[in-house]
C-alpha cells in the first residue's frame, strides 16, 4: 500500500510545504543522531522546498487582506478543533496508539493557544505586544507564549525554557 504521506505529496494542496517539512523533520532527527553531514543535506532540501513553497503561495497570500488572512487562519483552527482534535479522545484512545494520542492532545492545546493569540491580535492590533515583549514558541510542541522571557516550563509539554525560540518584533 502506498505511504499516505507520499500520496499527500503527489495529490495534496501543498506538496512543496509537506516535502520541506519531511526534510526538516529528518534534519532534526539526524542532528540528534550526531550525523551532521546528513543533517545539512536534509536542511538543504528542506530550505529549497520551503523557498519554492513560499514562491508558490505568494499570489494567493498577497491577494488577501490581512483581515481575510487572519479569518482564514482562525477558521482553519476551528475546523481542526471540530474534527481531528475533537475525535482524539475517542479515536486515538481506541486505536491504542499513544504516540498519536500525545500528538493530538498537544496539538489540540497548542491550536487553542494559537486561536487565542490570533483573536487577541484581531482585537488589540499592535497593542498585543508591549515594549520589550516577544512571542516565544516551544520547539517541542509549538506552544506560543507572550512575554519578555519564555516561560520557565512549557505549560503544554513541560519542556524547559531552553527549548523556546524567541520571535522578536522588528523595530519600526
Amino acid at each position, binding site marked *: 500500500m502506498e505511504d*499516505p504521506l*507520499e*500520496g*499527500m505529496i*503527489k495529490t*495534496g*494542496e*501543498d*506538496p*512543496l*510545504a509537506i*516535502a520541506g*517539512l519531511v526534510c*526538516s523533520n*529528518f534534519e532534526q532527527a*539526524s542532528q540528534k*543522531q*550526531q*550525523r551532521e*553531514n*546528513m543533517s*545539512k*543535506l536534509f536542511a*538543504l*532540501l528542506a*530550505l*529549497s522546498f*520551503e*523557498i*519554492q513553497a*513560499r*514562491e508558490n*503561495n*505568494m499570489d*494567493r497570500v498577497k491577494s488577501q487582506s*490581512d483581515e481575510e488572512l487572519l479569518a*482564514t*487562519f482562525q477558521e482553519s483552527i476551528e475546523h481542526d478543533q471540530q474534527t*481531528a482534535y475533537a475525535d482524539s479522545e475517542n479515536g*486515538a484512545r481506541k*486505536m491504542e*496508539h499513544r*504516540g*498519536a494520542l500525545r*500528538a*493530538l492532545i498537544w*496539538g489540540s492545546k*497548542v491550536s487553542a493557544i*494559537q486561536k487565542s*493569540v490570533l483573536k487577541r491580535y484581531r482585537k488589540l492590533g*499592535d497593542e498585543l505586544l508591549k515594549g520589550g515583549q516577544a*512571542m516565544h*514558541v516551544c*520547539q517541542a*510542541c*509549538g506552544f*506560543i507564549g507572550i512575554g519578555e522571557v519564555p516561560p520557565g516550563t512549557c505549560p503544554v509539554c513541560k519542556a524547559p525554557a531552553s527549548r523556546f525560540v524567541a*520571535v522578536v518584533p*522588528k*523595530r519600526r
Partner: protein
Amino acid sequence: MFAARNIALCTKDCICLFICPTGATDTENGQIDAEKCIDGCRLCVDACPSHAIYLVHQRYPQRAYPPDEVMEVMTGLLARKAGFYIRALTAADDASHVRDTLYRSLALSNKVLAEDCIRETGHMIPEAEKIRGLASSHVLQNLYSDTFEEDEGKSVSAILNSILEALMENRDAVPAAAFLCEACGYIVLDNKPKKCPHCSSKSVQSI
C-alpha cells in the same frame, strides 16, 4: 555506539578526561571524538557527576507502522498544518512589526505541529522503511523538477543517494559541496556558482 557530551549540562569536572582509555573525551571543540571512542565502553558516561554524557546509537530498530485509521487522521492533520505554516510564513514577508511577529510565530508553531504528525505516521527517523520508499519513488525529484525543469530532479537524486548510502552503512553522509539559491531554491552541486543558473540571483549560500 559512541559517547557524546551535552555541553549544557557539563560542569567541567573533567573526570571523563581522567577515565577515557583513548583520550577521546578531550577535544578542542567540546565534543567527544566518535572515531576514538571505544564502542560501548561507557566509562565516561558512568563517571560523569553531572550526567552530561550519553551514548549515541548507530543502529535503530524498525517499528511497526501505526494502524491505517491513525495514518489517515495524522496525514490529514499534517497537510492542514503544512498549509497554515507556509501561508503564515509567506504573509510574514512584508507585514507590520507586530503582525509579522504573529505570522512568524504561527508559522513556527504549525511547523512544529506538522513535524510531530510526520513522526507519528511512521516517519520518525531517516532509517524508517518508508523513507527508502519515498526516495525510490522519485516523488521528491519529480516535485523539484516541476519547479526546475532543467535539472530533471538530478540534484535531489544525488543528495538522496548520498543519504541512503550512509543509512545503509549506519554512518553519517560524506561531506558534500552543495549550494542553494536563497531567492528561488535552486540547488547546485560541486562548484559554487557566481550567480544562480536558474534566476541569476547572487544570493547563493553554501551548506
